[in-house]
């Protein structure tokens, strides 16, 4: 009897509570979406402004009341940006530095990670600890001496100066070593029994299994080449050797006065486009790599 009474009471109660909480829930949902969409629009606004400004004529850009969609699409801005910023040359330099340094860096990283993950040798732990310790030191400390070293080697205005000092990344070695360690040792021993050489085993087994990490490293390294500013600025004096970021800042310096902002924005859009493309296609790898590294580039 009593039990039955309880049941009806709770059912009624629950219904009341659930309508109230459902209304509340919907309001919270609406608020959440409104907040997120507002923030997303703020985040996107600079990109939107860059693109529409890059397509305006100078006269339209300078109008007192801004237009939010170009009245006339001035694609000539892009051609002018290419020419004025010497962007082809910058793209070629950056792509060359990016590709060469990525390939060499991958080879070095794979070999080191393999040694740390699979081979036994004296002082392994000490060595690895020492490597990790260097990660705590800010890059500015290295840059000063490296600049002097590169100058002494007469590497100023050469690709070597842009590539060699940054080939080894302790973080990537660490990342790949962790990944290699997850591959069962039995596979390696079995391969040894079959007489497979280390390099063949690396190439046939470990690299395919660690591919996602390797792709993350590749993308972060390429992004690094694309975005680096301080070091290329130090070691390149000739315009023909500059990388894209320096060239961009160099060619379109003036903030004040008569700057042709539409052309500037076109140049910025051209420079940003490749990274966006890469991001759209390889989002998963970039986000996985970044959340583990915490470094830009």
């Amino acid at each position, binding site marked *: 009897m009593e039990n039955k009474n309880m049941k009806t009471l709770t059912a009624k109660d629950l219904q009341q509570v659930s309508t109230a909480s459902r209304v509340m829930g919907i309001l919270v949902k609406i608020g959440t979406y409104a907040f997120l969409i507002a923030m997303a629009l703020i*985040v996107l606004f*600079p990109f939107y402004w860059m693109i529409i400004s890059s397509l305006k004529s100078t006269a339209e850009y300078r109008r007192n009341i801004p237009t939010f969609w170009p009245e006339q699409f001035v694609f000539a801005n892009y051609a002018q940006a290419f020419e004025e910023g010497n962007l082809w040359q910058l793209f070629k330099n950056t792509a060359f530095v990016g590709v060469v340094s990525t390939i060499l860096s991958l080879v070095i990283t794979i070999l080191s990670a393999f040694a740390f993950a699979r*081979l036994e040798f004296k002082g392994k732990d000490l060595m690895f600890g020492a490597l990790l310790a260097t990660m705590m030191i800010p890059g500015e*400390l*290295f840059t000063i001496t490296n600049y002097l070293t590169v100058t002494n080697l007469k590497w100023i205005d050469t690709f070597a100066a842009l590539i060699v000092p940054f080939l080894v990344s302790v973080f990537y070695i660490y990342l790949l070593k962790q990944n290699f360690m997850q591959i069962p040792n039995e596979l390696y021993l079995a391969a040894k029994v079959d007489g497979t050489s280390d390099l063949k085993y690396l190439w046939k087994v470990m690299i395919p299994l660690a591919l996602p990490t390797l792709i993350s490293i590749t993308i972060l390294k390429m992004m690094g080449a694309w975005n680096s500013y301080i070091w290329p600025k*130090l070691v390149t004096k000739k315009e023909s050797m500059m990388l894209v*970021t320096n060239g961009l800042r160099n060619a379109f310096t003036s903030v004040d006065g008569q700057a042709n902002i539409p052309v*500037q924005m076109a140049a910025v859009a051209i420079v940003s486009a490749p990274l966006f493309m890469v991001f759209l296609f390889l989002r998963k790898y970039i986000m996985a790599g970044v959340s583990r590294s*915490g470094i830009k580039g």
Partner: protein
Amino acid sequence: MVESKHQWKAWLYLSPAIILLLVFTVWPIINTVAMAFQNNYTAGLGTAKGVKIAYEIGVENFVNVLQYENFGQILKNTMLLCVATVPISTVLALLIAVALNSIRPLQKFLQTIFFLPYVTNSIAIGMVFAAMFNIIGLREGNTVADTWGIINNAIMLFGGKPINWINQGSTYWANMVVMIVYIVWNALPFKILVLLGGLQSINKQYYEAARVDGTSRRRILTRITVPLLSPMIAYVVITGFIGGFKEYSSIVGIFGDTMGPKSEPGRLNTMVGFIYDSLNAGTIGAQGKASAAALLLFGIILVVTMINLQVSKKRVHY
């Protein structure tokens, strides 16, 4: 036999990494410390004539850095940017991450949008921000302009007065506001990514238990989400401070190499900017000064990180 062969092989595989690290990582650490403690060390001085200069050992480089007339300003800029941008971007990123975590439809899409600023070039997009704040063609006692810039247009739409943000004659605080907005915009994606990853790994049972108890949403946020997320929050705060003390290229992005409006070059210079200015100065003692400044920066970052870790030891629930 097999063992010794492996030993030899391991070192062979490691050799490219070790050689490069010795030249470009280990040697720089030693050499930079050495340069910092040799009074007025100047790279290449005398080498052309084959003379080896014996420098006195001392702390004069550090004294030179500290006595540099603009050092106070540089330290103030660096600190201000850190103290302002880290809390703002962390709180904002936390709110966005919590909101993102609570929705299903559009989650992936919005997450991608919030990550977009990360894949940009901080110099290039700095130029876009500069254009948004830039006033062109200012005339007649600073009252008429060709274009006030889209930010000022928005301010005027809401009845405010246009502000000279970055042009000649702009105030220090206006410049700072622009820098803070830009740095926060730039810092959000990484923080959102890390915090959202942390949120998604929180055990759902905590929330179910809270729901059974009828806990309010705010209590769930402050008593469950934030404590369980605290290691991730500590991580983004610490990396945020480290990044903040090394702020440089975002300022170049907006103001160019002048590190300030045309009328006030160097007004927004930071520690890193100071190191590179010294390195390239070509004056006597330039490299010693740069090395000393780099060591000082390292010291500051170390102390701040220690404080951060100490605070998080008390607050973070692992």
